[in-house]
């Protein structure tokens, strides 16, 4: 079932209506049924992979829980210290073993289904073997729910919270149907309980969430899909000159409008059930550094990598040894930078690899690794230069300059992300130097389309600017009179219906990030 389809819209309405009809304590069953229907209808027998993840983390969590209880009871035992130590060690080993098993099952499914050909080609080139390639049909949202499943079992292992003994909670957590396209990557302690407990119907919230869903559709099918036509043409290398730059910037608009639009739809659907899902974007293009950009863009993936890769690697014994050695250097900042190398490398390698097993994505990850490391290393130097030049760093113009530089670096990264392969980068650099061989109007199929994109992007920018300055547009709208509110609702709906790019020739149903 496609996200942008009438059947999906029907599923949203039917499931939310039934949700509020059944008794409050049984409402979670409606979500369970909707999830099962959506996933089995969309993925057929491939739903078993999801079931395997659910079962594995549910039982692993229970076992780890039991071991933790036993471990905690050791304190009370009337045995000597050495015996207690040995017993604790034994339980820690058991705990680790179960964690490893759960990780192997979940990561194994992901690696086999998504990365099999990458490993086969590696084995073939290393051992001159001739293992034939096999392409599996990857089930919906595999990369997303696997990260959620891993976060649950690692958190239970780290005793951040107790494992649940209610399978329904795990079922709801891993299969909530709006999340089954592009995430966001949720944590059990954020949504597990929320999905299970019934929520009261709130008319105002329901309307707000419907508006947010429509706004998401607008971003996707009015802006992103319209820019997508131009971007696809340019990235098929038929155009030259400054049009290439237009294509690259167009892609930034496309991916932002599409991904954040999808998140508006997802979070809006969650809101219809009274469930608050985590935000995945927070005005990323107002960031003043690449580091800040990644705290505002695809937030849930960034925080996942921070919590489960960056921190554990940073404070691992190996990295602490590196840090200790580095701190023998007199220049403290260089020592701190050296201690960042391994954790940042792991984060950005995994970030690249998570997107796909190709050189392009790995280099995309390494691009950010170098950028992050350099920006950290050069911080004191930039500070010194600013002091020497008496630059006021707390004024609008300086912030604007920082945001502009960040945008340039991010755009270069996006271009790397968009090209078919690394030769595409060379080709784009060559093509941009040639004279312009077409005009913008042709690329957009007429000026009307171009105008819609410009107006849409300006609207997007204004709304983001308001959000950046702490103005909640939904709260502002709720303060207005009923007639005005309904005019706004109707206008957004009409814009989507009239200016949306759907029908023959447009693939409104696909999402760029849905492919990961």
């Amino acid at each position, binding site marked *: 079932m496609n996200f942008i389809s009438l059947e999906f819209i029907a599923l949203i309405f039917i499931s939310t209506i039934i949700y509020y009809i059944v008794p409050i304590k049984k409402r979670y069953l409606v979500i369970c049924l909707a999830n099962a229907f959506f996933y089995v209808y969309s993925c057929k027998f491939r739903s078993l992979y999801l079931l395997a993840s659910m079962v594995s983390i549910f039982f692993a969590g229970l076992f780890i829980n039991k071991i933790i209880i036993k471990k905690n009871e050791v304190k009370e035992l009337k045995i000597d210290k050495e015996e207690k130590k040995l017993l604790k060690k034994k339980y820690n080993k058991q705990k680790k073993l179960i964690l490893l098993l759960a990780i192997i099952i979940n990561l194994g499914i992901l690696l086999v289904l998504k990365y099999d050909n990458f490993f086969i080609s590696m084995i073939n080139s290393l051992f001159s073997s001739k293992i034939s390639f096999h392409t599996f049909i990857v089930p919906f949202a595999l990369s997303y729910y696997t990260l959620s499943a891993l976060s649950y079992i690692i958190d239970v292992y*780290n005793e*951040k919270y107790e494992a649940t003994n209610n399978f329904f909670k795990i079922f709801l957590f891993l299969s909530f149907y709006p999340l089954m396209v592009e995430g966001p990557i949720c944590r059990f302690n954020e949504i597990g309980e929320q999905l299970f407990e019934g929520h009261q119907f709130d008319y105002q919230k329901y309307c707000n969430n419907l508006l947010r869903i429509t706004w998401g559709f607008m971003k996707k099918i009015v802006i992103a899909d319209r820019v997508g036509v131009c971007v696809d043409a340019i990235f098929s290398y038929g155009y030259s000159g400054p049009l290439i730059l237009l294509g690259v910037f167009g892609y930034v608009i496309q991916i932002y409008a599409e991904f954040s639009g999808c998140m508006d739809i997802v979070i809006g659907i969650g809101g219809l059930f009274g469930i608050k899902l985590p935000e995945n974007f927070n005005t990323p293009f107002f960031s003043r550094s690449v580091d800040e950009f990644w705290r505002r863009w695809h937030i849930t993936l960034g925080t996942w990598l921070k919590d489960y890769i960056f*921190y554990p690697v940073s*404070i691992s014994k190996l990295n602490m040894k590196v840090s200790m050695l580095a701190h023998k250097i007199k220049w403290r900042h260089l020592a701190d930078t050296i201690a*960042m190398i391994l954790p940042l490398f792991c984060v950005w390698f995994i970030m690249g690899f998570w997107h796909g097993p190709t050189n392009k994505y790995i280099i995309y990850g390494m691009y950010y690794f170098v950028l992050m490391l350099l920006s950290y290393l050069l911080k004191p130097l930039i500070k010194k230069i600013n002091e020497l030049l008496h630059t006021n760093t707390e004024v609008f113009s300086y912030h604007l300059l920082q945001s502009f530089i960040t945008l340039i670096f991010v755009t270069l990264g996006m271009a790397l992300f968009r090209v078919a392969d690394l030769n595409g980068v060379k080709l784009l650099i060559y093509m941009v130097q040639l004279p312009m061989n077409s005009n913008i109007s042709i690329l957009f199929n007429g000026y009307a389309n171009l105008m819609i994109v410009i107006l849409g992007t300006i609207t997007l920018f204004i709304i983001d600017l308001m959000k950046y300055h702490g103005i909640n547009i939904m709260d502002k709208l709720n303060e207005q009179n009923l007639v005005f509110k309904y005019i706004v609702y109707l206008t957004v709906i009409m814009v989507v219906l009239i200016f949306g790019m759907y029908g023959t020739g447009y693939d409104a149903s696909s999402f760029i990030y849905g492919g990961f």
Partner: protein
Amino acid sequence: MKNRIIEILNQIKPGVDYNSEKHLITDGILTSFDIVTLIANLTEEFDIEITIKDVIPENFESIETLEKLVESKEE
């Protein structure tokens, strides 16, 4: 101990009133880079071992919580 932690914090991120600031993480004053640098410096300075279980926002919110964390690790 308190003064030494403040000294380290000032080296990592100067210009913050660490005596009065109670939401170093919630308010986004300390980034993940700062936290890792802070952990490396605390480990070295106080000869303690900070594990992944300790890396939770509540432990890094203020000078008081940091002091408690170091004390608990010294025990």
